């Protein structure tokens, strides 16, 4: 997707936390600045994790990042129902709990290291 195309469509990204984000346990390769980058691009963003909803909210609050949703691993389909977007993408590190859930919910899927290199996470030039 080109930069122009990216700007003309609504993109929703769901982030797993542990093993995906730098603040996860274990830490993943996606930095919070990368999350801020897509936030600034007006993407719809949120987290989809086995962490409690309250701790997901606290995590985003601690990093001063406003998110559109926090859900459990099994709730990606709800996210798709709630938000009208052209692209639904989940990023996570687990085959069973991330990739399979994502594909089942009709999301595209990227592994964390794939996401880091994806144009979504490159600054607009």
């Amino acid at each position, binding site marked *: 997707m080109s930069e122009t195309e990216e700007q003309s469509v609504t993109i929703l990204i769901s982030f797993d936390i542990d093993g995906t984000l730098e603040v996860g346990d274990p830490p993943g390769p996606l930095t919070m600045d990368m999350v801020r980058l897509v936030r600034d691009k007006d993407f719809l963003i949120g987290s989809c994790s086995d*962490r*409690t909803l309250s701790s997901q909210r606290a995590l985003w609050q601690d990093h001063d990042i406003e998110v559109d949703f926090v859900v459990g691993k*099994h709730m990606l389909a709800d996210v798709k129902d709630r938000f009208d977007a052209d692209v639904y993408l989940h990023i996570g590190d687990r085959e069973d709990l991330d990739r399979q859930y994502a594909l089942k919910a009709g999301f595209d899927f990227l592994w964390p290291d794939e996401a880091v290199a994806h144009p979504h996470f490159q600054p607009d030039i």
Partner: protein
Amino acid sequence: MTTPTAPDAMYRNDEGLGIWEHRGKVAAVGVGHAPTSRRWDGRPETCVGAITIDALRKAIDDAGVAPDQIDGLVIVPVTTTGAFWEAGKPLPMDVIQSFNQTDDPLDGIAKLSAEWLLANMPELTNVNFTMYGPGCMSNALNVTAQAVGDGLAHTCLVVKSWHNFEGRYYQGGANAGNALPGTPAITQLWGGPASYSTALQFAEYCRKYGKAHDMMAPFMENSRRNGLRFPEGYWAQHRPEELGPEDYLASRWIAKPANLFDNDIPIMMSGAYLFSTAERAQDMKQKPVYILNHASSNTRPRSLLPTLDEVEADTALTGRKIYEGAGITADDLSFENMYDGFSLFHQFHLEGLGYRGIKFGEALDFYQTDISIEGPNPVSPSGGNVGSGRSRVWMHTDCIQQLQGRAGARQVTGVKPEVGVSGGPMPLGGNYTVWSASPD
């Protein structure tokens, strides 16, 4: 010295044995815990052997006992239920070579032996009694209490540790193969998740008594609240996250009606205690906590999984054995710390005890009342595994600390801490200890 597994004669499995012959003559004094972590990071100083040594030394120091005064060591040799060293994975030679080794290179890394510990704790110069209590700290405590009472040791350490490696729990080891001998072929290889049998029992419980899973929420919230006041625990140390009703009820099912938080989080941990005779304990640094009884359940279910009827019959039997040997009744309990990992069977233990007069089918309603440490009916003041991670140890530490008045922010205030009970793990198949602030 080769360490034996405790013989069956050391356990009090049967009803009708009368008052325990060593009632009030054995005491716990010292407590030691190593720092927890989610998984092993591969360093020698954080392997399960190293954290065990750390916990043992802290227990010795806490009791104020010179190491050469210790003559007994009881340990649980197995340090996981589901994190196994992968076949063919290279051995961590740098870690292995950091310690004095036994014949098993994974000793101290994926398991423990008394010989490994003694080889790496040169200060324990006079240990002449070692024994294995299989499975859990609950089991090892029964063995330790009986050993000290029987005079096999007068100052005895007891320790339980857990390791956790990267990767999926329960999916390695024998479970990764294509075949298993006997019952595990059905219950493990082709069966459901580990909480499956408890989930089935709980589902039947809800059907029988007209209850629902969401009635567990106050218990879960209370347990995590208590756990966050347990500075030795995982959640308090690493992720001080509460577990409110929304958090609990939004979680995904693992084996419906057991959700993610009904399953305890595997961690690295080690907890140790120093036991002694009541007489010797008088001169130690901490207030003695006396053992009034230990009791066990070795009941085998009729089929692959225990039914609810079997669970209720056996927890009631266990309750009777606990009270009989201690010479107490349910009314004497200041608090209870029965096992909770899986959370959905805690109420089976409670009802078997008849804690605060509750009967079968009433525990979930009881959870809707004040079960906090500030109230008159504290439930699981330790917070258990829900509150501090998988160990099967917190409940015992809490009993000791509550009765010593050292539970800190977790100290029960709604009742005077005089007698507590702890133990588990499963409703069928567990070991229990009755603790008292006084020997009488």
